[in-house]
């Protein structure tokens, strides 16, 4: 089957305050604003990483006409319990990124750990969304598979 779908352009991240989201994603993580438009019925706010136009994150508030008040409250409840979303990012110096974010007071959920594919650590945005930042080692798929197999063989 051919769908002709060709790229990931924008994906939504639910946030509870768009200005605070900008402070975090742009002020601490290093994203840049791509679009910030007051459409009247909503604030269309997208961000991306330097040097690449896409993909972008749409920093979106729960609610709006497509959600009744009860549904929006449920989304907010799940978000603040850490039960929604998830963003995977990469860094070319993950230990430096970790130290910068830690020193900035970001909620770190896991310190950097070595993985077969590189090194990564976990954090949360101010609303509860989990974020993972990895530095990929450059290992090929075969090398990563071999590392996992070696783990299994040791058992």
């Amino acid at each position, binding site marked *: 089957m051919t769908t002709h779908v060709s790229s990931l352009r924008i994906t939504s991240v639910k946030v*509870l*305050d768009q200005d*605070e989201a900008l402070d975090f994603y742009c002020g601490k993580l290093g994203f840049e604003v791509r679009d910030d438009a007051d459409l009247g019925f909503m604030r269309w706010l997208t961000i991306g990483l330097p040097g690449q136009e896409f993909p972008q994150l749409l920093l979106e508030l729960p609610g709006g006409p497509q959600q009744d008040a009860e549904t929006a*409250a449920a989304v*907010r*409840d799940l978000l*603040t*319990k*850490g039960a929604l979303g998830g963003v*995977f990012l990469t860094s070319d110096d993950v230990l430096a990124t970790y130290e910068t974010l830690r020193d900035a007071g970001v*909620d*770190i*959920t*896991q*310190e950097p*750990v070595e*993985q077969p594919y590189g090194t*990564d650590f*976990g954090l*949360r945005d*101010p*609303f*509860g969304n*989990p974020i*993972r930042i*990895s530095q990929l080692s450059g290992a090929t798929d075969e090398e*990563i*598979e071999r590392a*996992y*197999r070696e*783990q*299994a063989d*040791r*058992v």
Partner: protein
Amino acid sequence: MALSPQEDTNRRMLRARDEMDRRYAEPLDLVALASVAHLSPSRFGRVFKDVFGETPHRYLQRRRVERAMALLRQTDRPVTQVAWDVGFASLGTFSRTFSAIVGCSPSEFRQQTEVVHVPTCFVAAWTRPRERTTVSEKQPDSGAD
């Protein structure tokens, strides 16, 4: 950020649960966790259960067993060492808790399991065992279990 009282509670309790995730091998320190959540120690356990549906002690047990499952899958450490590494001070309590939660012994689990190839945070989240039977929660987990 304007949070409702419940959302504010959720967020503070999530910080405390993240702290438990980071320090899973250490004794459960309800006073410190309550401080993270800006609650009194006497209220912390009840509010935790209201938000996440289980007691802090039970959550910590599942977190430790999930870590034990990973170590059994990925390393050749002896079961006793695994028990110590995830925070149990007694092999008997570890084996009993593991079997009650997972449904088989640590050794049987090690023989059955396969290594999976996805980011470890997803493995941890999706392989964390659900409750099967009630494990005694009489004693707060002081690490001397």
